[in-house]
């Protein structure tokens, strides 16, 4: 048994000496950047030390016995088989330790649960496989998916070394931005299956459940970038929907809000202009790779039995209005993209699928036409 421990200590040293560039990995829970996450960290350390202490007592006794009370040393077995006093002691002492643990745990739990008096609210919706963020106070709204560099590197045998990608699998195209030192209430739901939103630095995770609303809150003390991941198995790309939260001090945050509002206006006006087929196809490719490729594959080949191919698909090469309708309202596992994509992105990706990925139908659709359809159809029911 001693040998085992020595070997293990050796392994730890070996690992520490491996000398890779990732100096920032940790062995322990992170303290995080909120009061709650610090309370949780303290609670974690308290219980860890209690366990270590009990472990030393129990294993120490056992190893003493294994060393001294062995037949090869000529030790004769005693034949006792009960002792009421000691049995009562080792029932009562653990009970007292547990009560000692339960008190701070209850306090932390009550603190975590209290979403009252929050200063702003953000709605988080989980999708296969991205996050939607809606700022309920100022109307800012966007989707956040795995960044392009990680997405390319994570393809099977991509030939790209993940170590060469900054923040591999922990980076997104559009991070969630929050102000520091404000109590922010999050409300969580999901569009398809259950996901779970976790940023370790905030100290908690919460499941996002289709048809139900969950709540949680945070108040970040320090400006910075905090990364996390989906933690509830949600299908094939569960490992590829990270979360990035950027906490900004008040003035920076306000500037960001203004910038977002301006960008939303520009986006709306670009829907009014007339786009050429080439422009649409060019834009459509990146929209496709972000929103469609995880199921229909980058080359449009789909996945036999689960996700239909785009290339030579009767829908994509058939009537354009039928394709637009299907994409607006969704079908089965296919989400209703009418609500997810902007009019420009929607028109671009329709045009791209009809004129790229091995298809050459030749027609296109204008963003203005999509805009008219989006405002005409009520938000589609996403559950089939």
């Amino acid at each position, binding site marked *: 048994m001693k040998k085992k421990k020595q*070997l293990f200590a050796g392994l730890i040293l070996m*690992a520490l000496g491996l000398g890779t560039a*990732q100096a920032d*990995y*940790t062995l322990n829970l*992170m303290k995080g950047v909120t009061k709650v996450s610090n309370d949780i960290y303290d*609670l*974690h350390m308290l219980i860890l030390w209690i*366990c270590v202490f009990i*472990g030393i007592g*129990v294993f120490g*006794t*056992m190893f003493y*016995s*294994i060393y001294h*009370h*062995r037949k090869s040393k000529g*030790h004769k*077995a005693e034949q*006792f*088989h*009960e002792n009421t006093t000691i*049995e009562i002691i*080792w*029932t009562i002492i*653990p009970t007292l330790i*547990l009560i000692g643990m339960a008190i701070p*745990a209850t306090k932390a739990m009550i603190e*975590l649960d209290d979403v009252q008096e929050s200063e702003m609210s953000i709605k988080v919706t989980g999708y296969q496989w991205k996050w939607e963020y809606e700022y309920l106070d100022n109307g800012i709204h966007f989707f956040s998916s795995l960044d392009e560099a990680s997405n390319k590197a994570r393809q*099977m045998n991509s030939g790209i*070394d*993940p*170590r060469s990608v900054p*923040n*591999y*699998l922990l980076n997104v195209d559009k991070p969630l931005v929050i102000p520091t030192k404000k109590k922010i209430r999050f409300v969580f739901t999901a569009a398809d299956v*259950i996901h*779970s939103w*976790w940023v*370790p630095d905030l100290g*908690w995770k919460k*499941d996002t*459940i*289709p*048809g*139900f609303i969950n709540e949680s809150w945070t108040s970040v003390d320090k400006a910075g970038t905090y990364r*996390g991941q*989906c*933690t509830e*198995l*949600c*299908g094939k790309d*569960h*490992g*590829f929907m990270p979360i990035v939260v950027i906490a900004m001090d008040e003035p920076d945050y306000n500037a960001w809000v203004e910038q977002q509002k301006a960008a939303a206006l520009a986006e709306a006006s670009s829907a009014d202009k007339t786009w050429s087929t080439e422009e649409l196809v060019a834009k459509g490719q990146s929209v496709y790779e972000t929103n469609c490729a995880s199921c229909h594959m980058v080359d449009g080949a789909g*996945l*036999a039995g*689960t996700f239909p191919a785009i290339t030579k698909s009767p829908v994509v090469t058939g009537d354009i209005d039928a394709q637009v309708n299907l994409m607006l309202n969704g079908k089965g*596992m296919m989400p209703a993209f009418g609500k997810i994509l902007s009019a420009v992105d929607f028109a671009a990706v329709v045009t791209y699928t009809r004129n790229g990925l091995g298809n050459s139908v030749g027609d296109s659709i204008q963003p203005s036409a999509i805009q008219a359809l989006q405002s005409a159809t009520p938000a589609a029911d996403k*559950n089939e």
Partner: protein
Amino acid sequence: MSAVVAEHDDHHDHHDHGPAKGLLRWIITTNHKDIGTLYLLFALAMFFVGGAMAMVIRAELFEPGMQFVNPQFFNSMTTMHALVMVFGAVMPAFVGLANWMIPMMIGAPDMALPRMNNMSFWLLVAGVLLLASTLFMEGGAPASGWTLYPPLVLQTGNALPFAIFSVHLLGISSIMGAINIVATIFNMRAPGMTLMKMPMFVWTWLITGFLLIAIMPVFAGAVTMLLTDKFFDTSFFDAAGGGDPVLYQHIFWFFGHPEVYVMILPTFGVASTIIPVFARKPLFGYSSMVYATAAIAFLSFIVWAHHMFTVGMPIAGELYFMYATMLIAIPTGVKVFNWTATMWKGSMTFETPMLFSIAFVVLFTMGGFTGLMMAVAPVDFQYHDTYFIVAHFHYTLVPASVFILMAAGYFWLPKWTGHMYDERIGRLHFWLSVVSVNILFFPQHFLGLAGMPRRIPDYAVQFADWNMISSIGGFIFGASQLLFLYVVIKTIKGGTGEKVTDEVWEDAAKHSLEWTLSSPPPYHSFTTPPKVIPTEHF
């Protein structure tokens, strides 16, 4: 006693109670030893099948980036690895041990319901084969985790109904096995074998039997609701139709939490059987062991939602499930203290079964510690669904249940076959296993705390080093198990050539009745009841 039985064995031609000849013997057998052997061999085979799936998982996780399997197949592997190991390996192995040992331990000739015994084994085979067949179906095997949470599980391809019917078959098989065990223990004990004289293994299985009878129908109900949601337009778990996906999780874990105790209680029983023999002392605190087992079984029914602390329960629910879960530490602690006290001032020797049992006590306790940490709801908000959880439940399953199954194999193989296993290879197997299992699972604590979620096929590069170490441990552990296969085959074929005594281990007959029978024991264990009943209080 053994003399009487040996005579019976030699003259079985004058009545027709011997085994049938050839392959048919194994298909139609109603004998508790034959069925026990079938269960154990089937479990061993499935241990390697499930292990091969684990090797696929560890190979993909060896380095960051996607190298060997696509993410969908990776998810199928984690799902099938768990289902095969739980329902195909660990549970059947303990049913196999129960079949072999319980009649011999309580002084009975056979199990109470021998025909049902045969049927429950073959239903198990049918269930596992049906499950395995889903690997070859369009859309792939289930990939939603062994918990089969909706709505995700409803996205399974053609495999879904087959997986659900397989769960039904496995459930029926388990229930029949459990009924048989409970009926045997209540009705077939030799005169004088009172409940409080039964070996701990029998006690733990009696309690486990009741757990199984209570929970398997619940699981069958849950998956049946999945079936009707998918094919008959019901909305049990669909919010759009007035249902609730979280309802499934409540039902599943009402089954699932006792289910993990189904795998650990018989483990406790075997450990309580082996440790006293090699410490040459009676088990310390026999009656408190019985009460602790019953307490753990009772608590297992009222703590289920600690698997769901992050689903958004009201605070009263969170606090209740936290307090109730913490309580489990008390009877579990009593057990660990009792095993330590059993070793204390004994006269210990360290044959392979004892080595595995000591490793079990130490490493299971470590799994218990992390379990206590996770019981604390606010801290579980960080641990939940990370590799910390993976490390925890593997510590309570692999170096606990699996190690004890190995210990049981080494402990009773000489009794079952009449041949001694190769102690040198047994010890080599132990040391390789105990070192590699820690290289495999200990780093996963660090990974989870550092923020690596479970069930992901690829990971951020700061997790690379510990994943590689964990994978190396996994490969060594996997390869080491081939030694066990070798030992088992060699022992069946004649072992070391050394003829074992009836007792096999020094003074073992003081502890339990099976050691009063010949090695190997007669086809029908006790045709006349034993006259002297050993007790743990000798």
